[in-house]
């Protein structure tokens, strides 16, 4: 009985060490977010280049007739409401 108990203890320790190591590796991967790099930096570059190539009137026209109208319904009615509800629940 005693030998089984020692084996179980050793196995538990090994499992715990392996689990901690895996968690550390996975944790490191999911702590380094790249959203800003993939999204915000690219958008900033693209925006600057589009603004260089189109006049203010064209920019405003596309903004009003595509961006604003999609934003009204998708961003403010759906995204914002989900985000706001989630944030309130978390707080």
């Amino acid at each position, binding site marked *: 009985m005693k030998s089984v108990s020692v084996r179980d203890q050793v196995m538990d320790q090994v499992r715990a060490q392996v689990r901690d190591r895996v*968690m550390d590796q*996975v*944790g*490191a*991967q*999911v*702590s*380094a*977010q*790249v*959203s800003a*790099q*993939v*999204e915000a*930096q*690219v*958008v900033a*570059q*693209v925006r600057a*280049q*589009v603004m260089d*190539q*189109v*006049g203010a*009137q*064209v920019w405003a*026209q*596309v*903004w009003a*007739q*595509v*961006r*604003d*109208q*999609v*934003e*009204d*319904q*998708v*961003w403010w*009615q*759906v*995204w914002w*409401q*989900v985000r*706001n*509800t*989630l*944030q309130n*629940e*978390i707080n």
Partner: protein
Amino acid sequence: MIKNLTAEQEALLPVYRDKWLDIGLSTEPLNFEKAKAAVCVAYESVGLPKPTKFYTAKSPVDAIRLIKNLNPRMETNKIMSDMAYGCHDANWLGFYQYFRDVVGIKACEKLDGLIDLAHHCGWLNMYHDTVVFQDRPKHIKFDDQNRLHCEYGPAILYRDGYSVYAWHGVTIPSEWITNKGELTAKIALTWANTEQRKAACEIIGWATVLRELNAHTIDSDEDPMIGTLLEVDIPDIGEEKFLRVLCGTGREFAIPVPPNMKTALEANAWTYGLEGNLLRDLEVRT
């Protein structure tokens, strides 16, 4: 420099608007394989190595739970702030796709991965080598003015049951819909958030609210569009005046008005920033 759009380009503006409204409001399930391929293009576009680990979550709360399991040290607010919004980024992705496809601006091709991604998933968290995709909502419901709204259930429902309840664009506690009988005039009229208070009164029905509070009539105009001035004693608040009036669509409303109002006409005019007789004159003219 492009100073004007051609007629052909202008004709495509509503096409792109409608296309991206459809993408943004899509309730299709997550397309995992296509989302994986698209996010890899997005990583490569900024010189990052492709991620190799992909997880799926059924809703934003499921994603938070999953990421906390992957890294218990991650704080919830940090996970939230790291989220990108996939299909819900439709407004600005559609804007740049128009410039890419219709105006021919090559620089917008850097967004190819993100544009493609928006077609296939909801929100997502992008980390070094790891991406957590979220499913899109199972349903999204609006009123006839495109405001988030559902009278008999959640206005937004995810596949794991996570939901948002809304009344004509105002988010409300779920129990106001799931257990309407518990919502009383007293709860409604003493609710701190004024937009939600108005929603609560509408859910109960203004006529019921005023009846429950034994409102007494101060003045009733012969024209139902001018309405009736009522006074009620609201618990914990005191005496308040309301104008009960029919709108052009035949719906009954009760609008809080200042305590110095003496007639329905005066109160109705106040809602337009006018004086009573001037409102009557305007009505005669129209």
